[in-house]
């Protein structure tokens, strides 16, 4: 079991790379939620803005990740540090599922419920925060889950611009034609994605209002 030996021997490096990886993805997701949910709300409030917002996020999604890192490199403040650059790129990738699910979640709120809320004298803000967002929380969270799994994968490419993370092993392994090195990056990354998927789906289920 050479492979397990390898894992144990490089335990500290792997753990450190995993922590870096989590940091990159975690920061990107925090920012993406902070931007994406409000953008989704704006898009659902003003239908004429929903096309440009979703279109913009769509375009970001289609740029190959390595190319996106390249495009961001010359940007003044962003290009100064590799992690900044990677977090920005990951944020851009994470936006689309979050925005899309936010608008879908809000659109999915039963119109009778919304009308009851208006008819009872709730203000637009009260309807948003007390009715629409709580009811669309599971859908929004599903978007966050998709985005998280997506960025955990893309973050492995961060090593190409020197931002660290589990991609470090993969790139080194590729360069040295060493399967064990590749697996040392790939297995924790896959485990991380599965874990995030599972954890967030649990949370999602708890938020979903029980319906018979």
């Amino acid at each position, binding site marked *: 079991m050479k492979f397990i030996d390898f894992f144990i021997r490089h335990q500290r490096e792997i753990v450190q790379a995993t922590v870096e990886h989590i940091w990159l993805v975690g920061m990107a997701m925090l920012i993406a939620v902070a931007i994406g949910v409000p953008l989704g709300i704006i898009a659902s409030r003003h239908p004429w803005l929903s096309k440009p917002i979703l279109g913009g996020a769509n375009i970001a999604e289609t740029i190959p990740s390595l190319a996106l890192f390249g495009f961001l490199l010359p940007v003044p403040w962003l290009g100064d540090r590799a992690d900044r650059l990677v977090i920005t790129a990951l944020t851009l990738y994470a936006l689309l599922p979050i925005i899309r699910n936010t608008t879908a979640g809000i659109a999915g709120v039963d119109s009778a419920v919304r009308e*009851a*809320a208006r008819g*009872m004298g*709730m*203000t637009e803000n009260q309807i948003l925060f007390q*009715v629409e967002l709580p009811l669309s929380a599971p859908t929004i969270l599903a978007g966050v889950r998709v985005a998280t799994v997506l960025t955990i994968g893309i973050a492995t490419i961060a090593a190409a611009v020197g931002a660290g993370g589990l991609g470090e092993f993969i790139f080194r392994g590729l360069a040295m034609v060493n399967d064990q090195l590749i697996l040392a990056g790939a297995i924790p990354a896959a485990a991380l994605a599965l874990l995030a998927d599972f954890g967030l789906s649990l949370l999602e289920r708890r938020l979903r*209002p*029980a*319906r*018979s």
Partner: protein
Amino acid sequence: MKAEPDREAAREPAIEFQNAGYRLPNGRALLENVGIKVRRGETLVLLGRSGAGKTTALKLINRLLDPSDGEVLVEGKSTRTWDAISLRRHIGYVIQDIGLFPHLTVERNVSLVPRLEQWPVERTRARTDELLRLMGLEPDTFSKRYPHQLSGGQRQRVGIARALAVDPPILLMDEPFGSLDPLTTGELHKEFQQLQRRLQKAIVIVTHDVGESLLLATRIALLDAGKLTGIYTPKEFLVAQEPVAAAYVANFRMYEEAERKNEVH
């Protein structure tokens, strides 16, 4: 001290449509030139087919829509000059499909408006319990349940309790007893009559059910294709000559006939 303004309020109509109309942005009129007065203690039924403008008329009262022509007065004041939010909190609203909040318990649903109005916690709780009892729902059993855990009739009761929460002088009900089985509907009809005798509110009910109209209405306003074809007491309605009203009555009689034919002598 309180009696004086109350008596005054009873004299002046709680709701008044003055040649009110509503037009869609594309110019199509959903409601034309409607004049109706509703006083406290009175139950006005808006009767008509789907698309006759009943719900539109209802929405003009709580300013979910603004009239394109004429005025709608609530307590003597044009809805245009009311602040929409305070107007709506002044009016109980029960809608088709109930519109209970699925993510809130029965208690939170009923106490929503009091909480928006920032009532003290104790008063809110006492009021919620009182309303649930009024609607025949034991608070200990039902407070913590979610809407999906209730039967259709129970949900409807919660919807009515919610609309009554801050004791609004006006109550609007859009097909409140639709989509329930006939026995539950009958039960709720009976309770509704007792409730109205006690509460003496100005109530407007939208329905397309003639039997329900005859049972609950003080007066029936018949709407047809956006126009008010007449206002009748239930007695007048049954003998009305106006063709639309007569058609409704004839249709209603058909079921009575069926009943008579099958009676055991």
